């Protein structure tokens, strides 16, 4: 083995696990996950014999569709009803579902009005999503993209998810170039800017302001072929939009993502466990509810919602595995059932003691 592996610190494993969880959640593609773990491509990956590294960064010519757009190819030909059914299938999120249903109705009526030759206001669909982590903002953004594609508003409906580091450059002029590049990738779909408020941090001299200015221009210039969704914590987003009036005036739709109730979090837990062939005993379910309440109390207004559920369940699954190791031949039922004693105390997952480490194969 090479030295790199021998020296691999546990911290890398923890980071890797977090990144891979984003793949499971659908927030990141497998390719992007590796990219973020390994850093930007070095010459070994991108070099073409006799060419330059820059060549490899261009989308390949011909039929290859690998221009970095996290499209969902299996969605081709998807109907509006399928997209809406998926939205309806999400746990909770009543106000968001209502807002999306209104948007759908508005766009359909607008189309009919156009067909009848009636006046139609110019359509601007940039949005802001406000809410705590784990409240489904990325999931809904992806659905919105597909909905707009099914309605014929966007050509492709794909989601390009970026954050401050993807937009802000390191020297004068670099930021505008990076931001325009991300906008170009998102044309025909949705540009999802996670933790958008972080673009405003750093004061007057920070390049984040340049990114915001470039975005404002792109949102105006490409308003018919691009939907920008800015997402982040409620308070920070409100402050961000308030301090950038140019931006706020171009975002007609602001959706609030409420925290999930404990009953909804339990439903989410059931979904997650079903997907992995586990289930909760009645006592475990009761204990999970108590643990989630304690988590909410402990985290004040930054409650991690579905992510907390996932962390607690991951820890419970590991504890169950440890418990089953003592049995000579666990039954299928035992392998599936999580018991109350498998659910970790809140302090364990809050401090990360039960939620870290790469699973050892």
């Amino acid at each position: 083995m090479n030295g790199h592996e021998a020296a691999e610190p546990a911290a890398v494993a923890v980071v890797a696990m977090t990144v891979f969880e984003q793949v499971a959640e659908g927030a990141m593609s497998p390719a992007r996950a590796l990219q973020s773990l390994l850093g930007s491509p070095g010459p070994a990956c991108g070099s073409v014999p006799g060419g330059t590294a820059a060549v490899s960064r261009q989308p390949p010519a011909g039929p290859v569709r690998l221009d970095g757009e996290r499209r969902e190819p299996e969605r081709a030909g998807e109907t509006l009803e399928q997209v809406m059914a998926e939205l309806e299938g999400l746990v909770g999120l009543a106000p968001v579902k209502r807002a999306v249903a209104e948007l759908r109705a508005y766009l359909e009526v607008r189309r009919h009005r156009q067909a009848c030759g009636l006046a139609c206001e110019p359509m601007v669909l940039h949005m802001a999503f406000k809410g705590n982590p784990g409240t489904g903002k990325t999931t809904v953004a992806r659905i919105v993209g597909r909905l707009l594609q099914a309605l014929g508003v966007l050509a492709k409906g794909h989601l390009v998810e970026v954050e401050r580091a993807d937009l802000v450059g390191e020297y004068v002029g670099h930021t505008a170039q990076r931001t325009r590049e991300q906008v170009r990738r998102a044309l025909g779909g949705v540009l999802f800017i996670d933790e958008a408020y972080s673009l405003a941090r750093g004061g007057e001299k920070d390049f984040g302001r340049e990114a915001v200015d470039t975005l404002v221009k792109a949102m105006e210039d490409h308003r018919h072929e691009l939907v920008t969704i800015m997402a982040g914590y409620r308070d920070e987003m409100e402050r961000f939009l308030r301090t950038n009036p140019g931006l706020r005036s171009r975002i007609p739709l602001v959706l609030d993502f409420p925290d999930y109730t404990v009953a909804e979090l339990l439903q989410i837990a059931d979904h997650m466990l079903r997907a992995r062939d586990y289930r909760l005993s009645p006592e475990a379910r009761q204990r999970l509810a108590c643990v989630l309440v304690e988590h909410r109390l402990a985290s004040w207004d930054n409650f991690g919602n579905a992510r907390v559920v996932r962390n607690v369940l991951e820890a419970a699954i590991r504890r169950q595995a440890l418990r089953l190791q003592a049995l000579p031949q666990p039954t299928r039922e035992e392998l599936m059932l999580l018991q109350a004693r498998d659910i970790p105390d809140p302090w364990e997952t809050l401090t990360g003691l039960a939620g870290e480490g790469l699973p050892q194969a």
Partner: protein
Amino acid sequence: MAQAAVVGRPGAGKTLFVLRFAQWCGCRRLVVTVSTRPGAPGLRRELSPAEAVAQLVGLSPPTTRRLQSLELVHRSGKHLLAVELVDTVGLTDDVHPEPDLRRGMADSLAVALASRALLHLLDGPRVAQQPGQLLHPDGIDAQLARLGETRARYAALVNKLDLPGGARGLEEVRRLWPGRTVIGISALHGWGFERVRRFLLRSLP
């Protein structure tokens, strides 16, 4: 037992390769363990090679939805090869719409990161049609090659040499990824397996 992860896009031929390779190494009965998570106790199934191919290999990918592993012990002269081959879920460039498959992909990435050796299956005819995918930084193949370069013993196995375009795909991989271990194989016919065995013998303790 040292672990080697078999990774690649859906439909590259990972499962068929694992099963045929085990058969080629002389396994009469294959004990396949299907895991819901890396490290979690899995369900063990004992199958004949023919049964395994019939049950686990599909014509319309993605067929493998969970991690499947197979322990392989092969003695040839004084050389003993003992390896746990982990057949992973096909990895995509994009976010997959199915949560189950996304979970499988996340687990597969974790296994790829933790394994001693990485066998990266490539679909030769597909590479011949779209060689640009090997270099694009947002493509899964380029990223898997980088992972192998930094963290494990790595070999690119260019599969489907028996199909039209397979040999051209192999040439493309060798041209675009100079300096890497590239082995042409046909999982269906067992071509190139001797080189794979030698690579594993060299790579594993």
